């Protein structure tokens, strides 16, 4: 499944962060797996930690500032990785079985799969049976910066509503 989460849909959570995506999406029902949050400032203090060590990276924003992307995960279930990169002339993302991939735009805009136009702080999550392959292309404006987040499951993981 693809989940296109527009910037306006992210949830403000405690400590001034935006929750971009989480699994489970409805808290306190299924076992907690992971969440992805954006802190407006790159220097924001680390939020409360659950199991596992948060992984974070700074993502350049359109106004020249940087935000911090932080991924928290249950270490027994998920190993998270973040890579920040420019879209340049385009690139491919291959997803493994047992992997959830999230792409978040920091600045500029990018086109995913030739049809989803992603702008600043829009996110695309891929999970489940399809797709395993994603083509990212540049938008019409200046080069886009994106964070590519991989959530590698120790067993089968997915995004849980």
């Amino acid at each position: 499944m693809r989940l296109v989460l527009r910037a306006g849909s992210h949830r403000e959570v405690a400590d001034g962060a935006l929750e971009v995506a989480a699994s489970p999406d409805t808290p306190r029902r299924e076992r907690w797996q992971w969440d992805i949050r954006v802190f407006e400032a790159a220097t924001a203090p680390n939020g409360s930690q659950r199991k596992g060590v948060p992984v974070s990276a700074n993502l350049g924003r359109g106004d020249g500032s940087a935000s911090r992307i932080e991924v928290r995960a249950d270490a027994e279930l998920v190993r998270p990785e973040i890579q920040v990169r420019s879209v340049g002339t385009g690139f491919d993302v291959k997803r493994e079985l047992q992997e959830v991939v999230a792409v978040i735009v920091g600045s500029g805009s990018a086109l995913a799969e030739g049809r989803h136009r992603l702008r600043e702080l829009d996110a695309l999550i891929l999970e489940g049976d399809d797709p395993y392959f994603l083509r990212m292309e540049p938008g019409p404006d200046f080069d886009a910066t994106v964070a590519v987040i991989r959530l590698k499951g120790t067993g089968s993981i997915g995004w849980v509503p």
Partner: protein
Amino acid sequence: MFIKNAWYVIASSDEIVHEPMKRTILGDDVVLYRKLDGGVVALDDRCAHRAYPLSAGRLVGDNIQCGYHGFEYNCAGICVRVPAQERIPERAVVQAFPVVEAHRWVWIWMGDPEKAAAVPVPDTHWMTDPAWDRVTHTRLFHSSADLIHDNLLDLTHESFLHQSTIGDEAVYENGITVEVDAQTVSVDRWMPGCHPSPLFEKATGLTLVDRWHTTEFQIPSLHVIHAGVVEPGGRREDGHLLTVLNAITPATENTAWYFYAFCRDFAVGDEAMNELLQQSLGEVLTEDEDALALQQERMETRPARLPDVLIAQDAGVAKARRILARMLAAEAKELANAGRLP
């Protein structure tokens, strides 16, 4: 609890005539009627005098007269005549609701009237566009509006509940793209190289197609489903197109009005097609109506320790519930800040 600051369909245009009509929506009774110039009036259906329903009264020109002691109200809900005395009490007023009639549906705003003007009613122009034809239904479902929202956001139910008409395995075999914005959730399913649904095959004669449907939920009151079929490899815009409008208006906590319009851009003016669609889609709606009534019943007796088990396909459902909850909470907070109870 209902989201009040939003436009909801309260009736189809042809239901409202120069006679009082009662309709319950968002837990409140509303009396509707058409003025002599054709305009629509919507008032709180409770006389200010002693609470008799105004819908049980009669029209006097464009005014409505209570059937109990004859208080007469104008279209703005202001009492203009008290038969038993000269003086009209200041508080003899009933609430008048903003209404907009557009494309054969009548929309009402039950919340803060001052907020209504800034919000346009959703676009439903397919109802009157001469390049399209349509069949419509109006139903009162015996289930909450939320269950109808869930139903429309997860169309895999077509494969099971509507097996004989609009559903087959292509629906659940193909993945979805769920898109979420501040106040809309859409669920798109692309089904390449498959059979059209049985109803579509009957209606178009095609047997192998690329097929799709996209539900766009304009929260809280309208689902617009764009669907269609095209010969394999063709472009969506060149196909046989459908726009299915589903305006969902809570009546009470466990009943909801369902205004349905199945619009198509092919076989326009074909009366035999209209008859076929009118009847088969009526059956489809009955299947939903019956299923949701059963679901409602089971949900009401379900222990709290057994919440829904949602799967990835329910992404649209989960996201919409969250947005609905957030909007409800925001309205409750606003009312509390203003010192009024929700």
